[in-house]
């Protein structure tokens, strides 16, 4: 099965981290995966995005022209990437910062979540909004399992943050629970 996603937001929102985490989860499931970071004169507060492609077959293009899915953490990212989406695609939108009305597509599945509130409720602070978003994406797309993402945290996180793994797992699960129908 093939899945691709572009994740985008401000530098510092943890975009690259959840991109890496998703890739590690795919590796745990013995799938092929590419992680391509946006590469330029990036800085904290600037824009950051990455593309992750997961495939059971050899991954062809790591470049995603028309994404199946988006994780959108800020408004400029929605404006930039939404027009390129495939019809029927899934957008996990950070409602804490972007009003769903900014979306101009009516042929996509827009999942607007108050990520900060969900993060606060699950883990006691708002800094795991990125993990909530990833949990929601994974649950919605089935690209990998939520369990694989939880297990992959130890691969994706620097060992000095491993004590934070349980909090991250709660945030991921909260994201998944929020989109379970």
């Amino acid at each position, binding site marked *: 099965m093939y899945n691709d996603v572009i994740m985008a937001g401000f530098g510092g929102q943890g975009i690259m981290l959840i991109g*890496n985490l998703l*890739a*590690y989860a795919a*590796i745990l499931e013995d799938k*092929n*995966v*590419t*992680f*391509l*970071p946006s*590469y*330029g004169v990036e800085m904290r507060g600037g824009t950051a995005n990455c593309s992750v492609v997961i495939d059971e077959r*050899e*991954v*062809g*293009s*790591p*470049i*995603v*022209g*028309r994404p199946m899915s988006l994780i959108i953490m800020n408004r400029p990212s929605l404006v930039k990437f939404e027009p390129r989406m495939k019809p029927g695609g899934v957008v996990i939108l950070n409602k804490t910062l972007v009003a769903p009305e900014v979306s101009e597509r009516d042929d996509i599945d827009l999942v607007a979540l108050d990520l900060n509130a969900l993060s606060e409720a699950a883990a006691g602070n708002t800094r795991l909004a990125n993990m909530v978003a990833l949990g929601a994406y994974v649950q919605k797309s089935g690209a990998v399992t939520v369990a694989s993402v939880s297990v992959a945290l130890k*691969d994706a996180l620097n060992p000095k943050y491993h004590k934070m793994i349980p909090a991250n797992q709660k945030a991921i699960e909260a994201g998944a629970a929020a989109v379970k129908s």
Partner: protein
Amino acid sequence: MSIPKKVFTKGNEAIAMAAINAGCHYYFGYPITPQNEIPEYMAEHLPAVGGEFLQAESEIASINMLLGAAATGVRVMTSSSGPGISLMQEGFSYFAGNELPAVVVNISRQGPGLGGINATQGDYFQSVKGGGHGDYKLIVLAPHTGQELYDLTIKAFEISEKYRMLTLILGDAILGQIKEPIIPWIPEKISGDPDRDWLITGAKGRTPRKITSLFLADGEMEKHNWHLQEKYERLERDDVMVEEVDTEDAELIVVAFGSVARIVKSAIAQVREAGMKVGLVRPITLFPFPRQTLLDVGGRTKKFLVVEMNTGQMVEDVRLSLPGDCQVDFYGRPGGSVPTPEDLYDVISETYTAQSSN
């Protein structure tokens, strides 16, 4: 040394890891984006294997340090990008004349001039046609995945020693920056033969040796040049690498190398699903160029499309290689843009359905 089965790593790190596992313990270089993870990795890991990392004062210094180290028979590498590789061209020519083996990595950037740091294939001509002076060639390898970056780096050291030639690995920012799982491995032979009769290792107890590219005596220069040409012919005969995908029944063949070949692969998978018979020829060695493969494929398929991230460089070699009755179209994107699979789907399907212009 125990090595994990799969390692999730950046392309640049895959190259550096492979180099050390191939026994390359000497690295001299000067930083430039988008290849900085290579010197970073070498600086961190070479001391642990008893090697030497040295940040040179310039790329010109790096390549000449490489020249000196290579003369002693050790495996040695440098890496750079566009402008830095341009500065090294004089050294490349001396490597050719002196017949010394070493590996240079060009994770190229957009040009001309200082350009930009993103992916491009504008350095094809410089790589395969010789950017330095004289009648010489480099061995040029063009990987297209993380695993291939690793595998071809090891290959680069081996083939470089086999022919006593500089080997260039040509990549770009997509390949250098992408992270993928790779499976590292260690080759059986991780250093050159210490008994090579040309090494400069100290002349105590034996006749002194000389490594030179200066040939002034009557007839010597011509003899040396014919000798070099003989090596290039041998390379074309014995060491061409090329990947063919679905060429057997193809009515259109796309020719592409490096990162863009990956994007082409996705596009071809889609046009195949739409019922179009399209295949791919992907040169892995850009020199020696897979002329014979193209001649063979061009015997049965008459329509070709060359796709490059430049405005038309490899297409010249494709046209020279194919039989005269083949039609060769070109789709290029200059530095500053990367085609998506959807762009290439459109180009490939339009070329496929267009009436032959022959």
